[in-house]
C-alpha cells in the first residue's frame, strides 16, 4: 500500500513537472523566447546556484565524517597497518588541499563569470608558463607520493625474516580453515586430490595417501559395477557419462600414485627434511588465532574459486587463488582483549572477511580472529589435535567436538587467559 502511495506521489509529481514545463514552454513561445536563448536572469540564478552548491558540497563532505565518525575502523592492529594509516594521513591532507582548491576555483569561476549581454570573454587561448607550472608542480608532488608509497609497499612485501612462523589460511565456498605447524615448526605438503571428509586441506602423509587411494578404488569398483549392471537399460549418453566419470576417477588415482612415488623419492633424498614428512603433526582447525607482537606469515590457498583474505583491522589483504599459494606476513600488535578496551566494545572481535566474490554465500564467508599473548597462543596451539591423531584411519570423522572443547577448557583453566572467541 505504502509502495503504491509513494508510486502515485512520484507519478503525479512528474506529471506536474511535465505540465509546468509545457506551460513555461508555451508562455516563452508567446513572448518570443526560445529554448536556445538562455536569459541573463537564468544565467545569473544558475551562477548563484553554483556558489550555493559549492558551500553545500563542502558542508556535506565535512558533515559525513564528523557525524559518522563511529564507522571508521579502530586504530591499526598490526605493524604494517600503522605504516599504512600514517600514509593515508599524508595522502588525505595532500588530496584534501587539491580537492578544496580546485573545487573552489571551478565553482567560483562558474558562478562569477556568467554571461552578461554586450560583454565579451577574455581572449586567453594559452599561456605556456602557466601550463608548465601546473604540469611540473603535480609531477614533483607525485614523485613524493610515489617514493613514499613504494617505500611502504617494499617494507610490507619484503621477504619475512627466516624462521618466521607460518600459518595456512585456506578458503573454500564458504568458510575458512586454518593450519598450524606441529612440533617440527613446518607445514607439510598438500595435494588437492587427497581432499576428502577427514582431510579438508589435502595434507600429504603416507596414511592419507593410502586412505584416499583405497577410497577411490572402492568408488571405481562401485561405479564400474553400476555401469555394467545398467549398461543395457540406460541410454547411450548416460552410459558414456558414467564411463567418463570412471576414467576421471582412474586418472585421479593415477595422479595420487605418481604423487606417492614423488614422495618416496623425496623422502629418500632429503630424509627427515622432506616436506612430505611435515604434514602428520600439522594442526587443522576452524579457529583462527595469532600471537601478538610476533611476525607470522600467512600462506593462503583456495580449494575452488578465488577468495580474498581481508583483515580490515590489520590493514591486510591478499587473494586466495586456486592452484597457487599466495603469502603475506604481518605482526599483530594489539590483542583482542586490548582492542575491546580501546573500542569500549566488550564483544569486539577481529574479523577475517572474504573479499572476492566467490558465490552465493560470499557475503557470509567470515571467521573471527583472536589475537592473544604469545603464551596463550602457544598453549592453544599445543592443545590442538594433530592431523594424524584427528583423522583416525578407519572412521570418516574429524576430531569429535567434545574432545576439542575439553582440550580448550583445560587450556583455559591452566593459563587463566581469556581466549573465548565469541
Amino acid at each position, binding site marked *: 500500500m505504502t509502495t503504491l502511495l509513494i508510486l502515485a506521489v512520484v507519478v503525479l509529481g512528474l506529471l506536474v513537472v511535465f505540465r509546468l514545463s509545457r506551460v513555461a514552454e508555451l508562455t516563452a513561445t508567446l513572448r518570443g523566447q526560445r*529554448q536556445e536563448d538562455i536569459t541573463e536572469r537564468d544565467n545569473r540564478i544558475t551562477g548563484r546556484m553554483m556558489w550555493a552548491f559549492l558551500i553545500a558540497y563542502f558542508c556535506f563532505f565535512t558533515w559525513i565524517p564528523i557525524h559518522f565518525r563511529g564507522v571508521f575502523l579502530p586504530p591499526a592492529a598490526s605493524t604494517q597497518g600503522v605504516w599504512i594509516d600514517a600514509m593515508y594521513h599524508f595522502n588525505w591532507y595532500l*588530496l584534501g588541499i587539491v580537492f578544496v582548491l580546485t573545487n573552489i576555483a571551478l565553482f567560483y569561476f562558474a558562478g562569477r*563569470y556568467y554571461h552578461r549581454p554586450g560583454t565579451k*570573454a577574455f581572449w586567453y587561448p*594559452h599561456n605556456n608558463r602557466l601550463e608548465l607550472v601546473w604540469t611540473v608542480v603535480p609531477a614533483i608532488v*607525485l614523485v613524493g607520493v610515489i617514493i613514499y608509497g613504494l617505500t611502504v609497499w617494499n617494507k610490507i612485501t619484503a621477504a619475512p625474516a627466516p624462521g618466521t612462523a607460518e600459518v595456512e589460511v585456506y578458503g573454500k565456498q564458504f568458510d575458512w580453515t586454518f593450519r598450524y605447524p606441529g612440533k617440527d615448526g613446518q607445514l607439510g605438503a598438500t595435494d588437492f586430490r587427497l581432499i576428502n571428509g577427514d582431510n579438508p586441506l589435502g595434507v600429504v602423509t603416507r596414511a592419507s595417501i593410502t586412505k584416499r587411494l583405497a577410497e577411490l578404488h572402492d568408488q571405481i569398483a562401485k561405479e564400474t559395477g553400476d555401469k555394467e549392471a545398467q549398461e543395457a537399460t540406460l541410454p547411450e549418453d548416460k552410459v558414456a557419462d558414467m564411463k567418463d566419470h570412471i576414467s576421471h576417477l582412474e586418472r585421479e588415482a593415477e595422479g595420487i600414485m605418481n604423487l606417492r612415488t614423488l614422495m618416496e623419492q623425496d623422502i629418500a633424498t632429503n630424509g627427515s627434511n622432506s616436506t612430505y614428512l611435515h604434514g602428520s603433526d600439522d594442526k587443522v582447525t576452524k579457529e583462527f588465532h595469532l600471537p601478538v607482537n610476533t611476525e607470522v606469515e600467512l600462506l593462503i590457498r583456495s580449494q575452488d574459486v578465488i577468495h580474498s583474505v581481508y583483515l580490515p583491522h590489520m590493514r591486510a589483504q591478499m587473494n586466495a587463488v586456486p592452484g597457487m599459494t599466495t603469502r603475506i606476513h604481518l605482526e599483530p600488535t594489539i590483542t583482542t582483549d586490548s582492542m575491546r578496551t580501546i573500542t569500549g566494545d566488550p564483544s569486539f572481535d577481529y574479523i577475517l572477511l572474504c573479499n572476492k566474490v566467490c558465490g552465493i554465500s560470499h557475503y557470509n564467508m567470515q571467521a573471527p580472529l583472536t589475537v592473544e599473548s604469545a603464551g596463550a597462543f602457544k598453549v592453544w596451539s599445543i592443545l590442538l589435535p594433530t592431523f594424524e591423531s584427528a583423522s583416525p584411519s578407519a572412521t570418516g570423522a574429524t576430531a569429535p567436538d567434545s574432545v576439542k572443547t575439553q582440550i580448550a577448557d583445560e587450556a583455559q583453566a591452566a593459563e587463566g587467559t581469556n581466549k573465548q572467541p565469541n
Partner: protein
Amino acid sequence: MSAVAHPSAADSGHAHAEHHHHEESFISKYVFSQDHKMISKQFLITAIVMAWVAMLMSMIFRLQIAFPGESFAFTHFFLGDKWAPNGVLSSTMYLALVTIHGTIMVFFVLTGGLSGTFSNLLIPFQVGARDMASGFINMLSFWFFFAATIVMLSSLFVESGPAAGGWTVYPPLSALPQAIPGSGMGMTLWLFSMVLFVAGSLMGSLNYIVTVLNLRTKGMRMTRLPLTIWAFLLTAILGVLAFPVLVSAVALLIMDRMLGTSFYLSEIHIAGEALDHMGGSPILYQHLFWFLGHPEVYIVILPAFGISSEVISTMSRKPIFGYRAMIGSLMAISFLSFIVWGHHMFITGMNPFLGSVFVFTTLLIAIPSAVKVFNYIATLWRGNIVFSPAMLFSIGMVSTFIAGGLTGIILANSALDIQVHDTYFVIAHFHMVMGVSAIFAMLAGVYHWFPRLFGRMMNTKLGYVHFWITFICAFGVFIPMHYVGLAGGPRRYYDYTEFPMFQGGVMDLNVIITMFALVGGMAQVVFTYNFFHSIWRGQKAPENPWHSNTLEWTAPMKQMHGNWPGAIPTVYRWPYDYSKPGKLEDYVPQNVPLEEGEEEN
C-alpha cells in the same frame, strides 16, 4: 545499395545532388541505415534503453543493501517469485544484478552508447566528410552491437539466471557452473554477447580512425581538429588495440568451459570432486582482462573529455585553454592507459615488484589528468558563461572527475590499496570518475547536439531540473559510499547484517545512499520525457543554436544524405575562435576565411 555507391568523401556537390532524388524505403532509412546520423541515433536510443535496464537493476539491489531482507513490491514486480520470493531479492539474483548492471553500464552504455553515438554523429560532421569511410561497415557495427545487447538481455531470462560472477567474470567462478548457478547458460550468453560486442566495436573503431585520418575536408589540419575528434580518434585507437585482447581472454574462457582445457584452472576441488584441470592460472585471465579493462575506462572517459572540452569552450564563449596541451594530455593518457592494468591486481598474488612498476605508471596518469582539469578551470576563468543544460553537465563532469580522480591517487598506491581493495571505496571511486562523469558528458552531448540529431530543441527548464537533481544525487550517493569503504565494507555483499562492525553507522550510510539513488533515478524520467517529447514536439531548432564554430553547424539543420547540399566547406582556422579580439561577433566559424592581417591560433 552498395557501399561503393556512396562517394562519401566526394567534394563535388554535383556528384551528390543525385542522391536527393533517391527515395529511401523505411527499412533502409530507419533500420539498416548506412547514414552516420541515423546510426548515431540508433546507438543513442539503444543506449538509453540499456541505461534504464541497468539503472533499474541498481535500484533493486540498492534497496536490498539498505534494507536487507525487506520485501518490496518493486523488486517483486520485476523479478517475480523465483528471484524475489515474497518480494525479497535472492542472493543469487543479487550477484547477477550487480554483474549485469556493471556489464551493461560499462560496455553498452558508456562504450557503445557514448562513443558509438557521438563518434558517429560528430566525426563526419566535424571533419567535413559526407559520411563515414564505409557506411556499410558502420551499419554492421551497429547491428553487431544491437545483437550483443539482445544476447545480453536474453541472458536475463534463462533458467539458471544471468552471469553472476561480477562484471569482470573472473574464473574459476565464471568457468564452473558448480560454483555458482549464473556460470551456466547465463555465462555462455555473456561471453558470446561480448564477442559480438567487440566485433561491432572493432568495425566502428576502424571506421572512425580511417574517417578522421583520410576524409578531412580541405584545410582541416590535425591541429585544427576540434578536441572531440581528437578524443574520438584516440578512443578508437585504444579500442582497436585493447578489445581484441578481451576476445582472446573470452575465447580461452570458452575453451576452459566447453572443451576441457586448463588455461585458467588448476588444482580445483569443487562440489566434492577434484577436477582434471592442472597447470592453468586464474591470474592469466586477470592480466588479459585488465589489459583491455584498463584502456576500457579511458575508452569511456576520453570521449567524455572531448565532449566537455567542446561544450565548455563554446558555452564559455572563450577558446579552450591550452589546446595543444589538451591534445598532448589526451595522447599521454592514451599511451599510459596501456601500461597500468596491473593496478587492478596488487593483491592477487602478482609479484610485488611488478606491483611497484604499476604504481609508478599509474600515478603518472595523474599528471595529464591534472593538466586537463586545470585547463578546464582556466577556460572558465573570465569567460562569458552561458548556462545551457549541456554546460551544466560539463561543469558537473569536471567536478565529479576531480572527486573521482583524487581518490584514484589513493587506489593507485599499492600500499594504500591493500586496505580498500574491493571495498565500496573502489565502487565510489570508479562510479565518480567513469560512471558519473562519463554519463554527465554523455548527457551534455545529448543536450548540446540534440538539435543536430533531431532538428529540434530540448526543453531547457526541464534540463535544469534534470541537472540539479542528478548532480546533487550523484554526490549524495557516492560521497557517503567512500566512507562505507573506509569502514572496511566489502563490495558485492548481499547483506551486512551478519557483521556487528557494519551495524549502526554503515547501515545508516547505506540508507542515505539508497535514498539518493532512488531520487536520482527518478530524475532520469524527466530526461527521458524531455528527450522523447522533444524529438516530435520540441521547438524547431534554428541554424547554429549555440553560436558554435565547428563545421557540423554549417550544414543545414534539415538532415540530408551527404550532410552539405553544395560543396563541403573549407576550413581556415582552428575551432576555438570565441570572443576573438577585433571581431564583431563572439564566434568565428571554422569555414570563415582569415581576414587580412589576422593571425591564426
